């Protein structure tokens, strides 16, 4: 009697399991099908543009996703499609983006260190003001800034694009770094302070080395956002020699109009390559950065 008692319970379990398992498996397969379908639908346009850029000129429209003939013609044509070579545009974009990264890292981390660790009169007041600028639409400062930079003779130079970064105008990164610095144990800098370390040494020798993850996140996003930026270069750079890649692309769409799609697609693909490389190599950092801070992109 006591031996048979568990038996029916066991059969109940084994009876329910295959059906439940089956249902679960079907649901999971359906979910995968839906997700794979959605990813293909979403990424297809990108793949299409990539493939179009490698097709010979007469096959750009129509033609299969895998080109029948691989051709680099579009790239050569596009590269020299404008009065100034795209090489110049890429170089300009690179200079502006790298300088912006340097500026943001220095200025934002200094401000963040002051807000997170140093004690001084008015700190909370300034911090509150800094938080308020997080939501500020840039259009409100646009025109006076333009007038100022124009008075300074900075139009058609990279200065209006990079100098603000050295003044920590991207409040978002200041905020990001403050949050990170606050998580670093205070004992470390207290001990250093007792040893008579200056604030500068504590910042340079303790905080920054411990903050590599947040500095990397800030660097990558600064690079990508500056690389992508269209509005500021559009306003401040009129001379084609000074153009960034994004301005070059825009001019390409205007000047060649509907004629050289191959060249346009090829240069568009090239313009996405740096961002895509960041995506490939720093995906984890990017995704964690967004998940923990709620970045907009």
């Amino acid at each position: 009697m006591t031996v048979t008692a568990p038996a029916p319970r066991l059969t109940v379990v084994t009876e329910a399991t295959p059906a439940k398992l089956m249902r679960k498996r079907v649901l999971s397969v359906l979910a995968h099908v839906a997700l794979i379908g959605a990813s293909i639908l979403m990424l297809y346009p990108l793949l299409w543009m990539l493939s179009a850029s490698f097709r010979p000129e007469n096959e750009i429209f129509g033609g299969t996703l895998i080109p029948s003939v691989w051709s680099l013609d579009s790239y050569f044509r596009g590269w020299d499609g404008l009065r100034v070579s795209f090489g110049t545009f890429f170089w300009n974009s690179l200079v502006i983006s790298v300088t912006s990264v340097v500026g943001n890292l220095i200025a934002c981390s200094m401000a963040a260190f002051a807000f997170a660790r140093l004690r001084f009169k008015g700190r909370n007041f300034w911090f509150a003001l800094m938080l308020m600028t997080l939501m500020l639409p840039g259009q409100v400062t646009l025109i006076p800034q333009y007038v100022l930079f124009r008075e300074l003779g900075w139009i058609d130079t990279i200065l209006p694009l990079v100098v603000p970064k050295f003044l920590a105008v991207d409040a978002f990164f200041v905020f990001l770094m403050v949050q990170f610095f606050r998580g670093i144990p205070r004992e470390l800098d207290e001990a250093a302070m007792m040893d008579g370390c200056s604030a500068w040494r504590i910042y340079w020798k303790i905080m920054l080395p411990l903050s590599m993850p947040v500095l990397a996140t800030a660097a990558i996003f600064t690079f990508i956002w500056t690389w992508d930026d269209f509005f500021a270069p559009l306003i401040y750079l009129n001379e084609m020699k000074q153009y960034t890649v994004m301005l070059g692309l825009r001019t390409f769409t205007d000047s060649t109009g509907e004629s050289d799609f191959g060249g346009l697609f090829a240069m568009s693909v090239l313009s996405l390559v740096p961002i895509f490389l960041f995506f490939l190599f720093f995906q984890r950092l990017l995704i964690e950065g967004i998940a923990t801070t709620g970045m907009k992109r």
Partner: protein
Amino acid sequence: MTAPAMEAGVPHAGGAVSQSWWSRVWQNHAPGYLFLIPWLVGFLGLTIGPIITSFYLSFTDFDLLTAPEWVGASNYIRMFTADPKFIASMQVTLTFVLFSVPLKLAFALGVALLLNRGMRGLPLYRALFYLPSLLGASVAIAILWRQLFAGDGLVNDFLSVFGIQGPSWISNPRYSLWTLIILSIWQFGSPMIIFLAGLRQIPQDMYEAASLDGASRWRQFWKITLPLLTPVVFFNAIIQTIEAFKSFTPAFIISAGTGNPINSTLFYTLYLYQEAFGFFRMGYASALAWFLLLLVACFTAFSFLTSKYWVHYDD
């Protein structure tokens, strides 16, 4: 040298007794301000100064070449009474915000829920769905979009398989704004990542308790998941709405800077750009900018005020 005034519970008396009042003040506050100098210069010179200046300019006629001329409130009066393009741009922008933000968040939440069921290959899916968000702001993507929705574009090629002859979406004022809304929805990846992080915060035992009580998955979603996720929904909604108000590049590229056909893609920021840098009406453009600031501020304040009725914070 004594140590600087760090944020620590240690009293900085040290050798201070012998020091003058001035050197104490200096040591207490100087390091903070020294570190803050770059930010302070930027904040005063490139943020606060310009905000005040643009407020002043919004009451003037200013063409960059001659000095601003005071015209009182006439810029603002003109906006609301004599400028059909302003009204059109408001309509376009509000339509864009009203449709793109909820749809984008719905997609983001839907996919996040699907992924959160312990799917295999989650990192891969997450990365694939995130890629458009990362690339989306680029001019290259706007160019691609213009091609996709052209009369002989990819979308119509696809539709023709089903025997549907699609219009030229981009140059048809009925659809052109929708191509931009779709472009925005396509970039649902980053709110999705934030939703995923939020979903992971929900304790699993709540679901276990609920299913023991016989609550269906549907009920669990409405009674557990969604309420606990409202802070994340709130956050995403605010960020995405402000971003949508500020959107510029796609409309500029797709309409070649015009906002056409028939002003159907004339985003507010695009109109502001035209007024400022096309016609050099800097005073009027400043008034437009200040109205945008007011709009964003009102929206944010309204959201925070109403949030206590629907956002659940557990403390």
